[in-house]
């Protein structure tokens, strides 16, 4: 079952047990190191390493496939364009590296609770205290943003249903205005709840 944006899957694999900090650091290193990948062979090695981590995290193949499918909307047009402009070899490297990095990033979120990821960011923001930034507040904002994505999707669904019930099948104005109003109302409610729960002043 997904946890937030359809990613975290609870488990006890070695990757699940690994703290969030090292996983995020590894992701950053992999991102920076990806510029060194230069040949199709190196790309295949990088992709193979990333794909091998999925069984290690005990992530089923269908989950992996489910993640690749939406990527195709970006990767296929990109591959076609690159094929025409720079040729087969560079295209394989570029598309392969992007795929490997996205799958690696997904693996981090699949095996790490959102709060653990946010906690790392909060710790990283601690030095900003000297300029008056409250790291806990940054963490709260990130968590709220993640929490609000499904809420807004749910609100959009409700508004669309109400539209259909009244025969307004494809009116963008009839979608955007009530969605905005509901979202602002929900934001008011969330603000009130944060105060009530003593999470903010």
């Amino acid at each position, binding site marked *: *079952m*997904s*946890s*937030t944006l359809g990613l*975290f899957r*609870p488990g006890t694999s070695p990757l699940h047990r690994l703290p969030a900090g090292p996983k995020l650091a590894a992701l950053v290193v992999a991102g920076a190191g990806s510029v060194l990948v230069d040949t199709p062979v190196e790309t295949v090695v990088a992709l193979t390493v990333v794909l091998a981590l999925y069984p290690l995290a005990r992530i089923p193949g269908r989950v992996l496939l489910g993640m690749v499918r939406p990527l195709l909307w970006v990767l296929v047009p990109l591959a076609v364009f690159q094929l025409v402009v720079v040729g087969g070899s560079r295209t394989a490297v570029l598309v392969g590296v992007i795929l490997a990095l996205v799958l690696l990033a997904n693996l981090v979120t699949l095996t790490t*609770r*959102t*709060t653990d990821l946010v906690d790392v960011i909060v710790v990283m923001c601690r030095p900003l205290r000297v300029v008056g930034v409250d790291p*806990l507040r940054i963490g*709260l904002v990130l*968590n*709220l943003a*993640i*929490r609000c994505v*499904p*809420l807004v999707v*749910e609100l959009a669904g409700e508004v669309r249903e109400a539209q259909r019930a009244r025969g307004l099948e494809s009116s963008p104005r009839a979608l955007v205005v009530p969605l905005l109003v509901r979202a602002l109302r*929900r934001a008011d*409610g*969330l603000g*009130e*709840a*944060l*105060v*009530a*729960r*003593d*999470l903010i*002043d």
Partner: protein
Amino acid sequence: MLIEVAGVSHTYPGREDPALLDVDVRLDEHRIGVIGANGSGKSSFARLLNGLVVPSRGTVRVGGWDTARDGRQVRRRVGFCFSDPDSQIVMPTVAEDVAFGLRRRGLSKAETTSRVAQVLRTYGLETHADHAAHQLSSGQKQLLALASVLATEPDLVVMDEPTTLLDLRNTRVVADILTSLPQQVVLVTHHLELVAGFDRVLVFDESRLVHDGLPEESVKLYRELMS
């Protein structure tokens, strides 16, 4: 805790009509019900009790703390449960939402984990610990909202129509939890059967506290007002 509401009137900014008018009441009973029509002022009254609403006139003291001056102290002792749990759940997953309030209170990670597990077990949510909050049913969301509030062990729990969005079964579940809570409870509700057996029931009408008595007589008066 003693709740003292003295000479309170409140008008929301931008509104002409007051939400509350000349409310005077002292409450220290274990179970207090608040009933009244929509817009009668009962939700505003509930919001007074943890400082969410600061009165335009008069004072509200809870456990000796002035809600206008000591809002933080009051909110640490008074838990508040809203009718729409979606507005109250602030974290992405079930366990994270319960944990968040606890971590803010300075509990260690180990203490938080243990308290969260215990609270989720108490409210039958242990199998949903890692589930996304938005994937729960309405009843489960309300239980989660309640669990998150009760995990912080407040002295007083204020509930503003917690059963409005629930079916009969989940209303029963919330009612059972209400009965078993050791804390003092102020319940705002349209479900009149929930306040039967309460120590005291307040009736609001047109922004005023029009009756304050035992459940049976209060409910009778409310029905008369609505007829």
